């Protein structure tokens, strides 16, 4: 590999990792608080992308979509948590199964409403060109994705560490039962957490759409990658999501170049090694395997 190619692939890897961070942060947040692996996370991501498609078609404004899609997904989360998950509070496995049903319904309805062909979303104005980096052209949109994820990470970290809602979420992750005993309305907290997690999935969908396209099956890819990220990085923490994403993103892009036929298998090999060496993931507190 030439140095230019290495640099280009490194940037690709980092921008893919940045996207994975946005995606996995939501999954990890929901798990940390509710002990539920939301298997509809991929479907939420996909819905975010299609909502963005609709918004851009209607208004021509990509930036409007960046706001509207997460809001729509947040509302979906606010409906689903009280309507379905709350009925099975404390029965985590059943809650996970519910999210499978939710994913089936959402992906099918997307197909009915928007059709089952692959679609594209144009790059937003200002980020539709390439710039020269070390002698080769590189699309500015991917640089934007990296910057966006970094800013989001800082904002999330601030909310998590320095605000009242962040304190509640941290307390809920530690011991939701004790929090309820202290008089906090955990029903509302769980609903808000689930909504924020869904909104993050939707946000990832919008951000991914111009670079990766909008198509059926994108939900499964997103779900698998976000699961790998949280398994590698550690479940339930923002730090875990960021470390996992920083590792999996570049591994995927370089794998594709170096061993094209077994790129995905390489990712799973990394996951297997980490599971064997560190059963709680790199930064996690919860042991995934004994």
């Amino acid at each position, binding site marked *: 590999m030439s140095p230019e190619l290495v640099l280009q692939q490194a940037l690709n890897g980092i921008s893919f990792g940045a996207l994975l961070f946005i995606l996995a942060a939501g999954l990890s947040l929901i798990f940390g608080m509710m002990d539920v692996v939301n*298997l509809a996370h991929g479907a939420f991501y996909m819905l975010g992308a299609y909502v963005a498609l609709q918004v851009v078609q209607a208004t021509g404004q990509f930036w409007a979509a960046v706001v509207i899609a997460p809001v729509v997904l947040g509302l979906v989360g606010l409906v689903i948590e009280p309507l379905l998950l709350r009925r099975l509070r404390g029965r985590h*496995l059943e809650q996970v199964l519910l999210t*499978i*049903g939710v994913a089936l319904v959402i992906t099918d309805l997307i197909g009915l409403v928007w059709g089952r062909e692959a679609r594209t979303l144009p790059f937003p104005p200002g980020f539709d060109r390439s710039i020269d980096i070390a002698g080769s052209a590189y699309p500015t949109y991917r640089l934007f994705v990296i910057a966006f994820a970094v800013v989001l990470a800082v904002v999330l970290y601030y909310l998590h560490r320095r605000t009242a809602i962040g304190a509640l979420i941290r307390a809920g992750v530690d011991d939701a039962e004790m929090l309820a005993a202290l008089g906090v309305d955990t029903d509302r907290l769980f609903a808000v957490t689930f909504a924020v997690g869904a909104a993050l999935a939707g946000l990832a969908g919008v951000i991914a759409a111009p670079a990766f396209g909008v198509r059926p099956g994108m939900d499964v890819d997103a779900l698998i990658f976000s699961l790998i990220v949280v398994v590698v990085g550690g479940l339930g923490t923002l730090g875990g999501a960021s470390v996992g994403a920083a590792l999996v993103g570049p591994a995927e892009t370089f794998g594709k170049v170096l061993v094209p036929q077994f790129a995905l298998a390489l990712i799973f090999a990394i996951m297997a090694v980490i*599971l064997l060496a560190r059963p709680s993931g790199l930064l996690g507190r919860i042991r995934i*395997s004994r």
Partner: protein
Amino acid sequence: MTRPTKASLSRGPRVRRWAPPFAGAAALVALFTFPDWSASMEGSRYASTILRDMLVFAVYALSLDVLIGRAGMPSLGHAAFFGGGAYAAAIAAERLGTDELAVTLGAAVVVAAALALVIGALTVRAAGIFFLMLTLAFAQMAFAIAFQWTDLTGGSNGFAGVRRPVLLGLDLSPPDSIYRLVVVVFGIVALVVWWIARSEYGRALVGVRENERRMRALGYDTTRLKLSAFVLAGSLAGVAGALSAWSFRFVSPNDVGLGTSVTGFVMVLIGGAGTLLGPILGAGLVLYIERVLSSAIPYSQTVLGIVFIVFVLAARQGLVGVAVQVWTRVRR
């Protein structure tokens, strides 16, 4: 879960003890001869195709229920073994130059078992949600291989024109023959699963499901028990995969994909986990929705999702559990 225990069954009158096996045998005979006695009816050919597919997936669901219903291991990666078996049967027939059933079916079982051994070794120590998550992720690795190893599997185009098997010189490729093969294999697998459920081994698996710590304290090697169940279930799923490859004469990466894993899970839960009849009924209902209902309405997948949600919310014991509840209420 309220189910009649074995003790209460065996103390009942002799009729009740012998009724289920007799009904099962009668149902198998009726299924086996279906193409004959339905020949004069309209749509017989179509009906036997649908029945065949239902039975293929019933084998698949039965194999998955060994994990979900007996051992309490909620695997969301079972398609790896179904698809692995399907590809193995298809590729073995083409590369080994023989269509002999023992060879191609054997290849399917060996490949599925080997895959299950690898994935199981990495996942069976995890419990509950983590097991589900890990099986899902690792099964996707099998999907990735099927999707990307184009020389062997045909990649995203799939493997078309699968050669149907020959049994000791008897050509099984006509539709009626392949249908009968599916019925016979289904009967054998159902018998195997029934026998496992009654055996000491099956009870030990239930013990692991109910209280793994206590089983360890009693001296059982629970990790080995769970791994053996995983490999056994994987091998049976490989059999289902081979049947699917012969039935459709086509294998695609979708057979290894998450969709197929989810379908199996939905079948077992809708039908009733931990019962013999449940996964069979579940497979029948899901196939009905996916094959028959889908030609009438465009949103059949949504219907399936909602049915599944309703069962998880309100009837966790599935169709069989609901039937048992209704039956006990009626008798009272």
